[in-house]
Every structure is written in structure tokens, then in C-alpha cells.
């Protein structure tokens, strides 16, 4: 355990953010963010799976034959996802129903496979674990931002509690129901990427 490499956690939060810069794991991030609660649960599940699969694969990295590594990785990841799924079903059944197939889809979440291939296969276990946590948190930041914006403007509430007071509605305020529809998630991610790159000029594409 040679030193606690803080960079591994800090970098994925902004400069190497898995969603906006590495373009990984978009599949699930859009579908679960119509409300804040499922977004948070999903973010925690993904962080757990990425961190522990990174750790396990990193321990095994010298014994896995390169030709069949994808299958080995898939088996380990799906094992962890089954555990997460069973825990969610046991403790937060409502949310697990809302997430439906997207818990299972953590297996093919590109963040997990991408980090396994790019980091865990060539680094020490503890570093890989930190890298997993960092990338999970980077994913969580985007998910929670999207969840807050979409739930606040789409349903006028946060975490199920009403935020926008009734007097607003009486004055003619309307919830923007496009916010909870799928297309708006895509457009919002586009805007987040725009803002993020405008502030970090070196990330712009030519």
C-alpha cells in the first residue's frame, strides 16, 4: 500500500470525467435520471461495482490469459452486479423496480469495462480500487446534476418532496414535462459537455 494517490480520485471528477470526457457509461446515465432518488442509488451501485471489480481484476491481472480476458471480466462483473441487485431488491424495492433493467445493464456499462481494460489490467490493486472509486464519483457528479435539474423542472420536487410552492402554480407556473422525457436528457448532457469544455479549453475537439 505505497502511498495514497489522491490524484486517482480527483482527476475523474472533472478533467478525466468518465461521462463528459472519456464518453463511457452514457447508456445508463440518461435513463435513470428523471428523478433524483434512482439517480443516487444508481450512482452508488456503479461506484461499488467499478471499485470492487477493479480491485479483483487487478489482483488477478497476472493470471488471466489475455485471449479470454473479456469473458473473465464479464463473469466477475456480473457476479458483483448480481450481489448489488439482490441487495437493492432487499432494501430499496421501490427504487429497484424503477431502475428495472438498468441494474443488470451495469454489467455492460462501458465505465466498468473501460476502467478494467485501461487501468486495472496494468496497475496495483489499491491504486485500481481508488481509480474505481474516483470514476464512480465522477459518474455520480453528472448523474446527480442531471437528476436535480430534471426532477426540479420536470416535477417541481426533489427526492420526492415538493420544492416549488403551490403559490407558483396558482400564478400559472407549469412543470416542464419535456424534462422527464428521454430527449431532454440527451440535450442536457450536450449542454453540460458544452459548459465543461468551454471552461477547460484543452478538452475541445478540433
Amino acid at each position, binding site marked *: 500500500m505505497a502511498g495514497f494517490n489522491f490524484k486517482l480520485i480527483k482527476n475523474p471528477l472533472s478533467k478525466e470525467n468518465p461521462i463528459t470526457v472519456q464518453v463511457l457509461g452514457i447508456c445508463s446515465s440518461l435513463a435513470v435520471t428523471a428523478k433524483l432518488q434512482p439517480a443516487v442509488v444508481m450512482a452508488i451501485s456503479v461506484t461499488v461495482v467499478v471499485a470492487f471489480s477493479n480491485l479483483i481484476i487487478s489482483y488477478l491481472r497476472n493470471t488471466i490469459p489475455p485471449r479470454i480476458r473479456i469473458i473473465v471480466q464479464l463473469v466477475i462483473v456480473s457476479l458483483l452486479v448480481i450481489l448489488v441487485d439482490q441487495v437493492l431488491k432487499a432494501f430499496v424495492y421501490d427504487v429497484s423496480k424503477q431502475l428495472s433493467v438498468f441494474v443488470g445493464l451495469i454489467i455492460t456499462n462501458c465505465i466498468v469495462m473501460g476502467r478494467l481494460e485501461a487501468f486495472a489490467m496494468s496497475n496495483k490493486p489499491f491504486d485500481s480500487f481508488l481509480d474505481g472509486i474516483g470514476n464512480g464519483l465522477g459518474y455520480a457528479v453528472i448523474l446527480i446534476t442531471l437528476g436535480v435539474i430534471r426532477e426540479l423542472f420536470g416535477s417541481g420536487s426533489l427526492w420526492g418532496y415538493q420544492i416549488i410552492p403551490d403559490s407558483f402554480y396558482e400564478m400559472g407556473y407549469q412543470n416542464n414535462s419535456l424534462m422527464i422525457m428521454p*430527449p431532454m436528457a440527451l*440535450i442536457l448532457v450536450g449542454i453540460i459537455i458544452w459548459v465543461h469544455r468551454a471552461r477547460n479549453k484543452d478538452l475541445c475537439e478540433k
Partner: protein
Amino acid sequence: MQEIINIFVKSIFIDNMIFAFFLGMCSYLAVSKTVKTSMGLGIAVVFVLLITVPLNYIIDNYLLKEGALAWISPKFATIDLSYLSFIIFIAVIAAMVQLVEMFVEKTSPVLYAQLGIFLPLIAVNCAILGASLFMQERQYNNVGEVTAFALGSGIGWLLAIVGIAAIREKLRYSQIPTPLKGLGITFIITGLMAIAFMSFLGIKL
């Protein structure tokens, strides 16, 4: 028959893999730079979906579901193996992709040259696993319906990726603010396409 056509049309336009569920976004964004390659990947996805989803349906119905093992012996009727479905589905997909790759390599070198590089990518494409999981959740009645669903989802995905690739080819010549170039504008255009696809909502045959 009508039910099958209904499922087919519905899974292309209304429950479109990309525009309604965002499945397979990673390869959708990475491979949609030119129409030709995106066509190759799209066809490979249709192909693999058509094989894996009905196969997973059969496995789910005769091995995993609660009571599915009753055909072996009535004693097994209470066994519920559905918690194993993730691992079994992904194993079937990974194995089938490998098999398809070897089969195509042996039988049709031309097709292999076009699809070859995409096939390994497909094992980790969320659209494939997603289709199997949706199949499990939506409880279709027979293999025919499941096949229609698989074919429809595949074609829907193909339509989406070829559409965005065609738009991105044109976009290269337009003036876009630098931070929005590439990824950002692709997201926003996909969003606009998704709004267009929403107009199919409510179509029923």
C-alpha cells in the same frame, strides 16, 4: 400475426433502443463518424440480437424462471433460478458472439471483412444485453413475438446510428462553437432526433 407485426413496429419506432432507452450509446457515439462503418456495426447488432434474444428467451423459460424446471421433474417446480439470469445472459451473449465470429470467418470472408472488427465490440454493447433483459421483463408469449421484438430493436438501432452518421458527415463542414464540437453537438442532435421519434408515440396497428 397482427400482434407480431405490432411488436415489430413498436420496437422500431416507439421503444427505439437509442431514443427511448439510450441503450448502446457508447458504440453509437464512438462508431458513428461515417455512414459506411456505422452500417457495418448496425448490421452486426441486428444479426447478434436475432440470435441471442430468442436463445435467451428459451433459456429463461425452460431453465431459469420460477417453475421453469418442472419439465424435468415435478419436484423442481418450486425452484427459482432467476437471480442467475444476468450471468447466464451475458455468458450466452459472449459465447454466441465468439461463435458467430468464427462462423462468419469460415463461411464468408467478405462479410467478415466488413463485420469482423465490430463483432468483439458487440459483446459489451448494452443494446444486446438490454434487449434480453427487456425480453425477460415484458413477458412475451412465444418465440415468434420475441424474434419480432429482437429484429425490430435491431433495425431501430441501425436506423438511429446510420441517421446520426449521415448528419455527422455533413456537420463536419458547418460552423459550430469550438467547445460544442464533436461530442456536444452529437448529443444535442440525438436529442432532437429523439423528439422527432416521439411523434410516433401512440401508433397502434
